[in-house]
């Protein structure tokens, strides 16, 4: 199939970007490729908003004592805003709603997702949720993104509106997940068997299952928080005979699997990038697939490891500790697969590969520190310290966000038909990677020294590490800005046109024009090989 690469350059022809023009044709488009961009712009607003909140917090924390934030309440608002924006509005829709939308139909050889109109509808549900959330920030919520009762049922900030926004956003997430499951089941091209699906599609499938199954639970829980606030329903409020720990159980029943909603697609992205730049078939394809599904399954029975100090019984604490250790197995399987794929490969260190390798490293740090936190005795000490903060930022930023940035660089030529400056992208990567580690390695040490999270002030003994962390945060922020501006600038003004298959990849999405035509493929492809056929004579 790579024989096409030299013949057609698609750019001068009609493609999905120019087959209709005008802002209205974008806002009402049911084309999965355009909806990817709608989501991309929407989530980036909240990435920037949440990022600014983080930088304000880091600036405050650079030195001991109140500096720029005089009011602790404002600090509570900032970390709530950071959490809600980053989790509900940025990372959860992050890869699935953007790259998932763009790639799944292309990778399986379909013309679109199963329900194109539902796809657009789910975007507007997201927009409505975002608007309600933005409106709620007029009387800003100060509960943290977890909305724990009884504080969330008693504080007079606009918790009801904010949790309703989260409910609406969850509905959008459910519809996206449902659409993807049906698409992958029903619309695979002839010859595209389950065991020929690219691992990104498998990862998206596992993600979609979690989105569909876990999200209703948190949705209802948040509605019950509203009922508690509005009518005193007596479910979560202990003064009315309710049980706040029940709320935590229900909340984490979603919010732990949601970690896998965030990071599984990133696993998929890395699984696509590494074989291409190692020129080798993905090592142990079946194990990658099985481990994705295993993570999705085991992820459902580990939620109470967030609650080891919340007064749950010894028995359940032990149970949840042991099953949490189990998650390490499929995750480690993946790491071995990626590393074995690179082993003796012909590796080229292009920007997407740099991000993918950074991902493997950062996620290893996240995974191994996760083992600490799964240990009951250790967790009692580390609970609610900066150690936890550093751990989950390695997971979510080092995993999910780096995965998204890697994917944007990798598929950029396909999405826009342009080639970005490799040098600029690498400089951005250097800032991003160095800044990220400089931010969060000191936070591990701070946590070990006993610095609790969610405080806007601290004793002077912690100051050095906090200052280093703040410098890192600015470098990290600069790296993101640089990377995204580079991509945006290239998309708008870039001159170098992308060929169909710039990386000489064997998977389906690279076999069509860059950017693809409106209905993805000139003719429906017939698949007769595995997705990672590198090293065979035709691709050597």
């Amino acid at each position, binding site marked *: 199939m790579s024989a096409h690469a030299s013949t057609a350059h698609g750019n001068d022809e009609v493609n999905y970007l120019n087959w209709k023009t005008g802002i209205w044709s974008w806002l009402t488009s049911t084309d999965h490729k355009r909806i990817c961009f709608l989501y991309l712009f929407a989530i980036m607003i909240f990435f920037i908003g949440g990022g600014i909140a983080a930088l304000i917090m880091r600036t405050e924390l650079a030195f001991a004592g109140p500096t720029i934030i005089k009011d602790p309440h404002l600090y509570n608002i900032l970390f709530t805003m950071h959490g809600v924006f980053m989790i509900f509005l940025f990372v959860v829709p992050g890869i699935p709603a953007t790259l998932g939308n763009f790639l799944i139909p292309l990778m399986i050889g*379909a013309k679109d997702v199963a329900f194109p109109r539902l796809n657009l509808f789910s975007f507007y549900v997201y927009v409505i949720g975002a608007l309600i959330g933005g409106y709620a920030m007029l009387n800003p919520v100060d509960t943290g993104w977890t909305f724990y009762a009884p504080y969330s049922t008693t504080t007079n900030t606009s918790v009801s509106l904010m949790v309703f926004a989260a409910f609406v956003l969850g509905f959008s997430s459910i519809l996206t997940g449902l659409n993807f499951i049906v698409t992958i089941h*029903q619309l695979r091209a002839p010859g595209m068997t389950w065991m020929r699906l690219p691992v990104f599609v498998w990862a998206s499938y596992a993600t979609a299952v979690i989105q*569909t199954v876990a999200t209703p639970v948190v949705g209802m829980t948040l509605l019950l928080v509203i009922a508690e606030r509005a*009518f005193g*329903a007596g479910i979560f409020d202990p003064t009315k005979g309710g049980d706040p720990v029940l709320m935590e159980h229900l909340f984490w029943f979603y919010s732990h699997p949601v970690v896998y909603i965030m990071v599984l697609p990133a696993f998929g992205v890395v699984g696509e990038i590494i074989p291409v730049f190692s020129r080798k078939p993905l090592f142990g394809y079946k194990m990658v697939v099985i481990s994705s599904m295993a993570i999705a399954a085991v992820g459902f029975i580990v939620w109470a490891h967030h609650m080891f100090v919340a007064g749950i019984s010894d028995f359940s604490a032990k149970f949840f500790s042991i099953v949490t250790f189990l998650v390490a197995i499929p995750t480690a399987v993946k790491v071995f697969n990626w590393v074995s794929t690179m082993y003796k490969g012909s590796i080229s260190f292009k920007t997407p590969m740099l991000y993918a390798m950074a991902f493997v490293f950062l996620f290893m740090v996240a995974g191994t520190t996760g083992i600490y936190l799964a240990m009951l005795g250790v967790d009692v000490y580390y609970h609610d310290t900066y150690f936890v903060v550093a751990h989950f930022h390695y997971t979510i930023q080092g995993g999910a966000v780096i995965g998204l940035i890697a994917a944007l660089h990798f598929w950029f030529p396909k999405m826009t038909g342009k080639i970005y400056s490799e040098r600029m992208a690498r400089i951005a990567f250097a800032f991003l990677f160095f800044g990220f580690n400089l931010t969060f390695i000191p936070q591990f040490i701070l946590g070990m020294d006993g610095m609790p999270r969610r405080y806007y002030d601290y004793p002077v003994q912690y100051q050095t590490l906090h200052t280093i962390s703040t410098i890192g945060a600015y470098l990290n922020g600069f790296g993101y800005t640089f990377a995204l501006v580079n991509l945006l600038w290239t998309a708008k003004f870039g001159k170098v046109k992308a060929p169909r298959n710039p990386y000489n990849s064997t998977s389906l999405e690279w076999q069509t024009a860059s950017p693809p035509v409106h209905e993805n493929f000139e003719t429906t492809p017939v698949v007769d090989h595995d997705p990672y056929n590198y090293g065979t004579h035709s691709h050597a």
Partner: protein
Amino acid sequence: MSNAAIVDHNVPPGEPPHIHHMDTPTAYGAAKLGMWLFLATEILLFAVMFCSFAIMRYYHLHEFHEASHHLDLRAGALNTAILLFSSYTAAVAVTKAQMGDNRGVVKNFTYSLLCGFGFLIVKSYEYTHKAHEGMFPFVWNSDFYHYKNFLGLYFCMTGLHALHVIIGMAIMFWYGIRPARNNRFSGKYYTPVELSALYWHLVDLIWIYLFPLLYLVG
């Protein structure tokens, strides 16, 4: 396995071609799988409240027993019968659609719709009665303070269920009755009727669990 290559080109004018990119059997399979997945999410939505009910009942067993006696058993039983009958007519509507009998669809869905109205009337009678007794909505100010956990869940569960009844009725009207009046269904195309009926069965099924839990067991 389905074949995305075959497309029957009955694309309505003015719509981009990718909207109707599936052949009829694929579209039917996709719609049905999508609906079942959606029903699964609905069940999980209610599962949170069933779970909360179990735990609250464990904490406040005595109060739950007593409070349950304050519900109107006859109204609940009547509503159960109404919904069971409406589910039957909805199922008949699907059979009629499969036979291409559009009038039959209109007739049977209208019966289901009337049952839905009946259910809502009985339910609102119950709610009014509760409000009159001072159990709703601000129960903690009244004589029924110690029933608040039961009543809170009772109103949340039945309230959300009533909302689903309304949504189910809207679906049956919009996707069932309205197109059937234009003779849209045939032995080859009856997906919307089947999916509307599926949704209605779910609404019925949830009530089948709510009734014994709230009215009988308590």
